């Protein structure tokens, strides 16, 4: 049997895989071609949908290992890990990849301990060296890149969202589904309550293609409304710097940076953000960076692709208008 590159499915808790799973499958497929093997999906869920299974096949999964059991929702590491470890012991995949999400970053760490193998968390690139996998991961607040290798397979890694490309969809591909018999425990921790965050009507910060972000230069919580207006026009998420969060202007879950979220959007627009190392750690891998700041010496201009030296309170409304005009065309 060809060696397998497994990708753990991240879903929306309603039976549909998230886009990041397409990214993980995409990278898995490219590495499988390079190193020999095929890419497969492993889905632990309480309820899969036909549409979701088809999606995995279209994203390139040659096979879908489906573990479907009510005890698998909500995610609990103590329940998922032994099930996945049992399947891995039986099937001996070459690699097991996950996405950097709340549950998978914990799951892959637990699994690495269970299997006694290495884990490269938050990887942003892979290469093959002498038939073995090497992962690249940002370290020291993104100031350096660490290239790491594994002593033995399976190679475990989590992949940063929005960094890896999806393969061209295999339209119409039918999933080959395996339902292995694996023991699922009931677990000891129980969900008491799930508190949904107040919906902003905007995309999730780590999943958004475009992120608009404000810092100390926003001057107060009331002014973030101009960023929200801009965000609505371009379909962006709104983030904030640590200065803005520590001042109490935005809840912590919107903080981008070393002590907040790490994002990698196609387009990042920072307003009134100086660009302290701690902020850069969270957005440095964005594809295009735009900075607007009054201070021409602000360090953010050193990493920005485009900058405007000016007053954000003038620039933001003009940008909103201009984007609106462009997108209405």
């Amino acid at each position: 049997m060809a060696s397998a590159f497994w990708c753990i499915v991240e879903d929306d808790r309603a039976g549909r895989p998230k886009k990041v799973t397409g990214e993980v499958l995409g990278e898995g497929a490219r590495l499988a071609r390079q190193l020999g093997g095929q890419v497969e999906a492993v889905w632990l869920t309480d309820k899969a949908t036909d549409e979701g299974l088809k999606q995995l096949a279209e994203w390139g999964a040659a096979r879908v290992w489906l573990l479907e059991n009510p005890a698998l929702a909500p995610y609990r590491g103590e329940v998922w890990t032994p099930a996945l470890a049992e399947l891995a012991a039986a099937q001996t995949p070459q690699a097991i990849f996950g996405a950097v999400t709340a549950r998978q970053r914990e799951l892959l760490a637990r699994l690495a301990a269970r299997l006694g193998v290495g884990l490269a968390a938050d990887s942003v690139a892979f290469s093959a060296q002498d038939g073995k996998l090497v992962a690249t991961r940002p370290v020291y607040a993104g100031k350096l890149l660490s290239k790491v290798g594994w002593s033995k397979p399976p190679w475990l890694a989590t992949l940063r969202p929005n960094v890896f490309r999806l393969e061209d969809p295999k339209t119409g591909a039918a999933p080959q589904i395996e339902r292995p018999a694996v023991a699922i425990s009931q677990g000891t921790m129980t969900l008491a309550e799930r508190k949904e965050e107040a919906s902003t009507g905007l995309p999730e910060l780590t999943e958004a293609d475009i992120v608009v972000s404000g810092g100390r230069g926003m001057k107060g919580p009331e002014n973030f409304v101009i960023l929200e207006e801009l965000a609505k026009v371009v379909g962006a998420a709104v983030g904030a710097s640590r200065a803005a969060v520590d001042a109490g202007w935005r809840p912590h879950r919107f903080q981008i940076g070393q002590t907040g979220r790490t994002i990698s959007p196609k387009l990042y627009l920072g307003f009134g953000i100086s660009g302290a190392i701690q902020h850069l750690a969270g957005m440095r891998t964005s594809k295009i960076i735009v900075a607007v700041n009054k201070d021409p010496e602000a360090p953010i201009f050193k990493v920005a692709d485009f900058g405007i030296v000016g007053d954000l309170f003038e620039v933001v409304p003009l940008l909103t208008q201009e984007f609106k005009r462009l997108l209405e065309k």
Partner: protein
Amino acid sequence: MKILVPIKQVPDTATQVKIAADAKGIDTTGITWIVSPYDEYAVEEALRIKEKRGQGEVVAVTLGPERAKEALRSCLAMGADRALHLRDPAWENADSLTVARALAAAIKQEAPQLVLFGRQAIDDDMGAVPAQVADLLGWPCASWIMEETISEDGKSVRAGRQVEGALEIFTIPLPCVLSAQKGLNEPRYPTLKGIMGAKKKEIKDVKAADLGQTADGAQLFVVALEALPPRPPGRIVPGEPAEAVKELVRSLREDAKAI
């Protein structure tokens, strides 16, 4: 209730880090060391649990070289009762799993009811050790917690973990592992009295053999540490705001194809 808090000494974020001559690690000369910020949330939460219950013991533990004692001293100054310093040549090139195994062995000996970690250390940002320790011990765990309440009988904890778009609150039987996310609390500064008192508190050296650990070799190894590839130089879009904005949007659309 006994609470164990594993911590790590890391370079201060603002410190310049330089790659060492062997290109596998950093040159540590001139570095300012701190307790990893997330670990401070863990220490603070442990102290609050002890204070609220009116009794208990908070034990800080780290694995690292001699200098890591300073980090333990900082935790003792905050109010931890005593500390363990895991230090042995066998752990010199430790990866996450080696550290997790050493910590799990120390935890078995100490038998705390709760182990509180920071969500990740801000040097290698791996964030794997808390969950790995939980798995090695066969304990449940909740990562990135934003709130917690220990039940009155001390048998379980209600902990809220941060997930995409929500807070999931679990009832977890003790013992368990929790990892702290920013927002859990605001860590205290050590008082002068705390700093003086810390000098008299015990820091026990623990060798690999004391924990029945051997140098089993890292599962993940560094091939090379590299500087970031330089970003292509950026462009300051000149002109009055209205002009600059028009040109910026055009560039984003036509040159960068970002929108």
